[in-house]
């Protein structure tokens, strides 16, 4: 297997911090999506639809 071919590779200087960076970046990505999705999943305040309805009535009356 390719993985076993190079056991030294993993121990090479710089490879461990690189993995750690990847891990941290992935964690930040997960949290970022969570932060965004939390708002997406909130109920939309009535104000939004009220404003849109008023704008629609105005254009419908034209």
């Amino acid at each position: 297997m390719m993985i076993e071919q190079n056991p030294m590779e993993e121990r090479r200087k710089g490879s461990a911090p690189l993995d750690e960076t990847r891990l941290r970046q992935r964690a930040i990505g997960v949290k970022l999506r969570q932060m965004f999705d939390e708002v997406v999943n909130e109920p939309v305040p009535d104000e939004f639809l009220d404003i849109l309805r008023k704008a629609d009535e105005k254009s419908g009356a034209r």
Partner: protein
Amino acid sequence: MGASEKDRFAGLSPRERDGVFQRELVQLIPHLRAFARTLTGDATQADDLAQDAMIKAWDARNSYQLGTNMKAWTFMILRNQFYSDKRRSWRQTQLDQEAAERTLVAVDDPEAPVALDELRLAMAMLPDEQREALILVGAGGFAYEEAADICGCAVGTVKSRVSRARKALQGILEAGDYERDGGEAGDAMRSILADAERLSAVR
């Protein structure tokens, strides 16, 4: 989207077209709110911005081609509004740093999970253009090409902004490079790692 998608709207009267447009716009409101919230970091300011963008989109509905990417189109309207609001209040704001500090106070919600709070604080410290690019690609589900259209810049520019944003966020979170009363700043990265692990374990 293909030609068949456009054909669906071909025979519509202007009134029917408005109806279709409005239904699609309503479905996008949660996404507009999320984009505005993550962009500004302030819930009240964000909903004002999202409402402005929604009305601007409605008013401009005749220039929108049904069947094309409406999410990207409305996001573009929102970000343009964000920057024009920002330019108008430039004199009061003076420094980005001051705005960031105000945001840090505004997002201090005691109910919020710690890790998420840390990320909000760190996000507030990014330059607008980097934050925007990272949100679009990292959370909004846009491809680099779409994000470039939304931001009105080159694909390579978006890529480099996203990459710089990611690097900066990690740096801020690792260094705890922000003020929080009583909080152990250095714990930010640790709590985010733990929380992300918990989230993926749940899935």
